[in-house]
């Protein structure tokens, strides 16, 4: 039986990845180790000493933080995994143009790359989850329940990032996007502190970000914390980002490759 065409492109991405998998997996592992050491042991001890555990649902800071960090990791990885392969394929190495001389078409490329990104995000978040367990944070079941929505939040941002990257003429727009879009979202979507710390009128702004929903889902599912919206709504919102993003990415990648 013939292999579905998007899977052929996904396989190519995977083969490409094999070249760097050691370095990549190591950094996916080291990253949470450093974060949890700094945040948890350093910062967490201070925060817990402040005694304000109500803001964290009565949990130790580190326990409350962990699912949020997972979602934020999915989000950051999704932003990068969405942008960089597209930049490489259409601009830096231009390898995607020659792919079109095979049965693979532009939509197969978009679908294949998003499929591969899903796998990568599950890997990144999965490794993060393992590190959490090694640090003695959470239970295997709870961590697994945080990994899934975190990877999903990553995918929800990867798709529009792929579209954005395909539309760029050069790299400058990319650093602007990370500096003024991705990083602020990373900091202000309730990962490190509850957005209830902000004045009430500004809190709905956070509701618009995919990361905030990812954080809500990760905490809701793994810690059983109460969420602002029903969880299906947050999933739906992330799905909207994914669907619109994938549609835009398909248009942009096609426009870039087919002339």
């Amino acid at each position: 039986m013939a292999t579905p065409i998007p899977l052929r492109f996904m396989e190519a991405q995977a083969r490409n990845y094999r070249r760097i998998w050691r370095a990549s997996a190591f950094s996916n592992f080291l990253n949470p180790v450093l974060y949890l050491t700094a945040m948890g042991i350093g910062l967490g001890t201070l925060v817990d000493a402040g005694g304000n555990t109500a803001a964290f649902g009565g949990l130790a800071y580190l326990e409350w933080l962990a699912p949020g960090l997972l979602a934020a990791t999915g989000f950051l990885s999704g932003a990068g995994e969405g942008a960089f392969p597209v930049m490489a394929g259409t601009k830096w190495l231009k390898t995607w143009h020659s792919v079109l001389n095979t049965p693979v078409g532009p939509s197969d490329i978009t679908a294949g790359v998003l499929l591969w990104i899903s796998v990568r995000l599950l890997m990144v978040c999965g490794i993060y989850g393992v590190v959490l367990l090694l640090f003695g944070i959470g239970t295997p079941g709870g961590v697994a329940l945080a990994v899934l929505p975190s990877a999903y939040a990553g995918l929800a941002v990867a798709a529009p990032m792929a579209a954005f990257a395909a539309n760029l003429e050069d790299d400058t727009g990319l650093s602007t996007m990370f500096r003024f879009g991705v990083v602020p979202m990373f900091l202000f979507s309730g990962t490190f502190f509850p957005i209830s710390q902000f004045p009430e009128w500004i809190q709905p702004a956070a509701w618009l970000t995919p990361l905030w929903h990812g954080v809500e889902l990760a905490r809701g599912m793994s810690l059983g914390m109460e969420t602002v919206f029903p969880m299906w709504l947050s999933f739906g919102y992330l799905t909207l980002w994914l669907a619109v993003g994938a549609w835009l990415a398909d248009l942009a990648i096609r426009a870039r490759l087919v002339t």
Partner: protein
Amino acid sequence: MPAPLVAARGLTKKFGDFTAVDHIDFEIQPGEVYGFLGPNGAGKSSTMRMIGATSPIDAGELTVFGLDPREQGRQIRARLGVVPQEDQLDGELPVHDNLYIYGRYFDLKRSEILPRIDELLEFAQLEEKRKAKVEMLSGGMKRRLTIARALINQPELVILDEPTTGLDPQARHILWDRLYRLKQEGVTLIITTHYMDEAEQLCDRLCVMDRGRIVAEGTPRQLIEEHSHREVLEMRFPVGAQADVLPRLAGVAPRQEELADRVLLYVDDADAAMGEVSRRGLVPEATVVRRSTLEDVFLRLTGRTLVD
């Protein structure tokens, strides 16, 4: 005659208001080497990309293997080999992996691809480079790898867009030799080039393309016979003297072309013409007698040289 492998009628490509390929007609038969000869910007690559079913057609009809690229692009591409003008190899991957990954796009099984890669590396004289990163290869090697890649699916038709541009003479000759071998195996080849010697050497039939149109078509010999004379007498006069000499050459040759640095006389008998020139008391600084080539055909048809 068998059904043509590729047939175009009124084939047109536009970029905005600009017409890059302007209602061209051609037919390519199975087993032949067909060339598109023309200068940069003539519309050769645009034509190749339409035949390759990767670029939308703006008007006219095109069939490849009797299939319609607008509807059956995937089926066409599955049977084609394409050597694009730019190699578009993955420089960060080894030679072997570039071929393997490309083969998987055609859904070839591992057990099919591996022996095929061995054959192709031998064909492209790249056996020793199997594990080398592609960015380390020379231009000629990259070009041969791109050809090897195009052959992974054992295509019936291979499109080569400027296969030798930018290569040194030795690398070009190695490549030509590989293309002859393909032809002998019965593969149909479509080649674009702006080198007239390449077109003359390789092509059974060719068309001359200029500004999106086909201005002549035939075998290299037919084109030369129809559009040029047998011999060319090239004369170079001292700097500044050419303008004064021109009127005195009137009537020596049935056709005369003035380039910036020399005068070309198109004649059937160059020796006789040379005698006539010296009888008129004209002494060129340098004289070359040669056969007419496709370059001369191009000059005749368009008033311009192919490579400037």
